[in-house]
């Protein structure tokens, strides 16, 4: 893991003794059968509620949940760049939008099935991200953030208005796959997509490539000294992030049935996804998915709540209240709790895997002195 790397600038202070795997608290602990049963119940209960929810005629908000799944995939894509690799992207509206328009084009103009649309969106998303990654090789850190910002603007104002690609301002059609045209059925599609992305992301971090990317975050120079192919893995990270975003875009497009250039603006996509990633917790998959859900459900149920207590302005502008609130949460997260919601979800995850339940488990995220840039 990246924690084993030492930055040269940290030289003066003696480093604390390294914790090896066998010394980690909780090892050697085995849950009792009742403990395993509780863990199994904790996994199965939400699953069963989910199955019941999808099959029942209960008043459901499937569309909102599908939105949450799309936001979660987009935020996981940002997490690969910001969380794992330490690159920052402020142009994610381009990443998501390119996936959306590509999928729409493939489905409605080339008359291919939905799955082909998703796969092509994935590939195109990866390619555009790699092109951006080539710039990241030359321009690092904060300056690269500017390039992504400008790239997002170009996508918004130029790419998404090319008539041959997006049908101009009227929007491109992106029908849902046959058999999955209802909101509820389409939710299943989105959830399968999210599950696949989570699976890929989990394996990604656990492999050599994942460790290499995290080494790059701490210091590209040190990583290079340890034999990490800096260029290759930077581009790899961009390709992965672009691929996730392409999938998110394809699902986004078919959820709305039409895509327009106006759907992909800086404040609505790039900043919102960034904030979801930060509040969910960088490098905390569970936290990111959880906060995507909270973010969408907040916007969904706040109007009801506001109607109940009779505050009209909140009822009408619930989405913006949630956005403002999330921004405040993001700042508070950065200042007080760099792991974000991951502070809660990560211990739950470890508990489910058969460890003791305990909140503190080392591992700093963005902030806390480590990582990033030590120059004044």
């Amino acid at each position, binding site marked *: 893991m990246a924690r084993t790397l030492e930055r040269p600038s940290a030289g003066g202070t003696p480093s604390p003794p390294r914790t090896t795997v066998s010394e980690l608290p909780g090892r050697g602990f085995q849950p009792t059968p009742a403990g395993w049963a509780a863990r199994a119940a904790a996994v199965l209960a939400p699953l069963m509620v989910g199955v019941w929810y999808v099959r029942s005629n209960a008043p459901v908000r499937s569309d909102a949940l599908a939105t949450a799944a799309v936001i979660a995939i987009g935020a996981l894509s940002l997490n690969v760049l*910001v969380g794992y690799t*330490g690159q*920052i992207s*402020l142009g994610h509206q381009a990443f998501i939008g390119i996936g959306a328009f590509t999928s729409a084009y493939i489905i409605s103009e080339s008359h291919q099935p939905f799955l082909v649309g998703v796969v092509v969106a994935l590939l195109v998303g990866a390619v555009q991200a790699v092109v951006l990654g080539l*710039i990241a090789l*030359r*321009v690092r*850190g*904060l*300056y690269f*953030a*500017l*390039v992504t*910002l*400008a*790239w997002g*603007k*170009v996508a*918004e*104002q*130029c790419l998404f*208005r*090319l008539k041959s690609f997006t049908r101009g301002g009227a929007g491109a059609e992106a029908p849902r796959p046959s058999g999955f045209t209802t909101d509820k059925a389409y939710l299943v599609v989105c959830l399968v997509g999210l599950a696949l992305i989570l699976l890929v992301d989990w394996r990604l971090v656990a492999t050599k490539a994942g460790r290499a990317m995290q080494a790059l975050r701490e210091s590209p120079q040190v990583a290079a000294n340890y034999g990490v192919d800096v260029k290759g893995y930077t581009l790899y990270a961009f390709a992965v992030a672009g691929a996730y975003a392409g999938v998110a875009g394809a699902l986004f497009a078919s959820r709305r049935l039409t895509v327009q250039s106006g759907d992909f*603006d*800086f*404040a609505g996509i790039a*900043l*919102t996804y*960034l*904030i979801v990633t*930060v509040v969910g917790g960088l490098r905390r998959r569970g936290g990111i998915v959880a906060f995507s859900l909270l973010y969408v459900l907040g916007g969904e149920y706040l109007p009801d709540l506001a109607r109940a207590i009779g505050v009209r*302005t909140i009822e009408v*502008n619930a989405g*913006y*209240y949630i*956005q*403002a609130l*999330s*921004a*405040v949460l*993001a*700042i508070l997260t*950065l*200042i007080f709790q*760099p792991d974000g919601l991951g502070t809660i979800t990560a211990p739950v995850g470890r508990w489910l895997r058969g460890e003791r339940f305990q909140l503190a488990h080392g591992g700093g995220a*963005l*902030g*806390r*002195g480590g*990582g*990033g*840039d030590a*120059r*004044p």
Partner: protein
Amino acid sequence: MLAFEVARPVVLGVVQGAGVGLMAIGLVLIYKSSRVFNFAAGEFATVGAFGFYLTKSHVPFLVAALIGVLAALGTGLLTERLVIRPLANRPRVTLLVATAAVAIFVIAFQFLAGAQGKLFGAKALVSGNAFRLVGVFVSWQEIVIVVVLAASGAALAWFFGRTDLGLATLATSQEPTAARLMGIRLNRVAMLTWGLAGALGGVAGVLLPPLTQNFTPAFGTTDLLIPAFTAAVLGGMTSVPGAFVGGLVLGLVQNLTQFNVSSNRLPGAPSVAVLVVLVAVLVVRPTGILGREA
């Protein structure tokens, strides 16, 4: 023909570029003092614009302008105190994300106050054309903008070159520890630069909207932020005059492409031009045109 394709965009470019340059100076000041890329800068301008145009019809003109600038200044100070100072020793990427969160907070606040999708009229502060220059009219409004912006730039140059406080700010940016040992209060300097940056953004926000007759909520972030950053990068992120010159260059580049590339052939040409300039500068000459340190 020449008048439309060259002279008019040049005039507009200089005027808009001066405003962009002013915002870029704000970015440079903050970068010099806190080493932060301030993504909330665009919203300083928006706050200034709202402060001015919402009060203009109720109070005298100059009072409204003052309200706009003060509102932006206050936003800058609040950002420094509530967001930047608690994060002072964190990695710079963290600070960047935090300023982006400030931007989205201000944007969401405008939207929930009912500004979403609206267009706010911004009539010229002074009407009429001043004179005719190679076939194009130059309005008094444009002259006022350029004069005010140039005056602000000159005042800043004087401040940093001739006053103790200005020198203290420069010293802090170069060597915070030594500056502190010399008795400079770093928090005060940070407050000063963020306040100044807020006020500069506010001035740009008050002056620029009449050029396009109206403005939309969050226009500072969507329209001005990227050119301003590119201008600051052209100045090497550290040079105040460089940032202002960079602003003029960006204004010219944007308006010349706007007027000469048909949006049917390539929509959004100015944004493409800005990206090209930004990448070219960063790849070819990262120290900018007038910058000394990278």
